[in-house]
C-alpha cells in the first residue's frame, strides 16, 4: 500500500472534520433546530452547498474539466426508481432527527473524543448489516 497515495484523502477528511465542527453541523441541537424550523443556519449551509455544487458540476460537465489523472471528470447517474429513495430516506430521517448525527459527523464526533458515538457508529453498522440481509425482501 502506497502511503503517499492516501495522504490526499486524509487531508480531505481532516478538512471535512474541521468544517463539520466550525459550521456546528455536527451538533444534535442544530439538527433539532433545523427540523423545528427555528433557524436558517442549517438550511443556509445545505442550500449554499447545493446551489454552489450545482453550478460547479454543471460547469465541469460543460467545460469537460480534467481531474488529477488528466482524464475528464465524469458523473454517475443514480439508479432510477423511487421506493427505495423515499422509504430509505424517511427511515434515515427518523434516525437523523433522533440521534442528531448523519454518517459523516459520526466519525468527526468520535475523533473529537465523544466516545459514546462509538456505540452509535456500531449501531449504524448493524443497521447497514440488517439492510444487507433484508435487501431482497424490500421494495426498491
Amino acid at each position: 500500500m502506497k502511503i503517499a497515495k492516501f495522504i490526499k484523502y486524509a487531508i480531505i477528511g481532516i478538512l471535512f472534520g474541521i468544517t463539520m465542527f466550525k459550521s456546528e453541523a455536527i451538533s444534535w441541537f442544530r439538527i433539532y433546530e433545523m427540523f423545528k424550523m427555528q433557524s436558517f443556519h442549517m438550511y443556509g449551509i445545505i442550500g449554499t452547498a447545493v446551489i454552489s455544487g450545482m453550478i460547479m458540476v454543471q460547469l465541469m460537465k460543460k467545460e469537460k474539466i480534467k481531474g488529477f489523472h488528466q482524464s475528464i471528470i465524469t458523473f454517475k447517474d443514480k439508479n432510477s426508481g423511487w421506493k427505495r429513495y423515499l422509504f430509505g430516506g424517511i427511515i434515515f430521517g427518523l434516525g437523523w432527527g433522533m440521534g442528531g448525527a448523519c454518517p459523516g459527523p459520526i466519525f468527526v464526533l468520535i475523533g473529537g473524543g465523544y466516545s459514546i458515538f462509538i456505540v452509535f457508529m456500531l449501531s449504524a453498522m448493524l443497521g447497514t448489516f440488517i439492510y444487507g440481509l433484508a435487501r431482497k425482501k424490500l421494495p426498491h
Partner: protein
Amino acid sequence: MNFLYNFLVVEPWPWWFSGLMITFIMYLHLFFGKSFGMSSNLRTMCAIGGGRLSDFFKFDWRAQIWNLVVAGGAMIGGLIFILFIDQNPTVNISPETIESLKEISINVEAGNVSHFPNEIFNWGNLFTAQGIIFIVFSGILVGFGTRYAGGCTSGHAISGLSNLQIPSLIAVVGFFVGGLIMVNFILPYIMQL
C-alpha cells in the same frame, strides 16, 4: 491577517462559508476521481468485519480504502479541532430552540450549549430505555435507512442534488419527512420515558 485568523479560527463559520467549504470538499473528491459519500464506509466496515451472510458485503472492499482514509481524516479533523481550536465548543442555537427544548425537558443555558444533550448521550445512560432508543436504535435507523436509500446527506443531498439527480431529490424529501416527524411528533413522547 488578524481578520483572517479571527474569521477562520476564532469565530464559528457563517453558514455561507460552511456551505462553500462543503462544496470545496466535494470538488476535491471529484478532482481525484472519487465521489463524496460518507455512508459507504459503514458498508465497507461491515464487509471487512466479514459480512459473509449476504452477498451485499461481498465486494472488493480494498477499492474503498481511500474512503476509509477520508473517514479516518474526519476523526483526526475532529481531534485537531478539540485540541487546538476549541476545547469546550458551544453552539449558538436560537432562543426559540432553547425554549422549545424546555418543553421536552432538555434544559440548556444560552451561551453554554454543548454539541448534544449530555444527559442523554453518555455511557451511564446507555442501558436505560431512553439511552438505547437515542444511541442504539437511532443508529440502526441511520445505518439501515442510508443504505436502503443508497446514500446519506453527503451522497444524496450534496453530491446527488448538485448533479440534478431526481432519485436524490426524492431521498432528501424523505430525510426531511422523517426528521420533521421525529422531532415534532415522536421525540416529545420518547422524552417522557
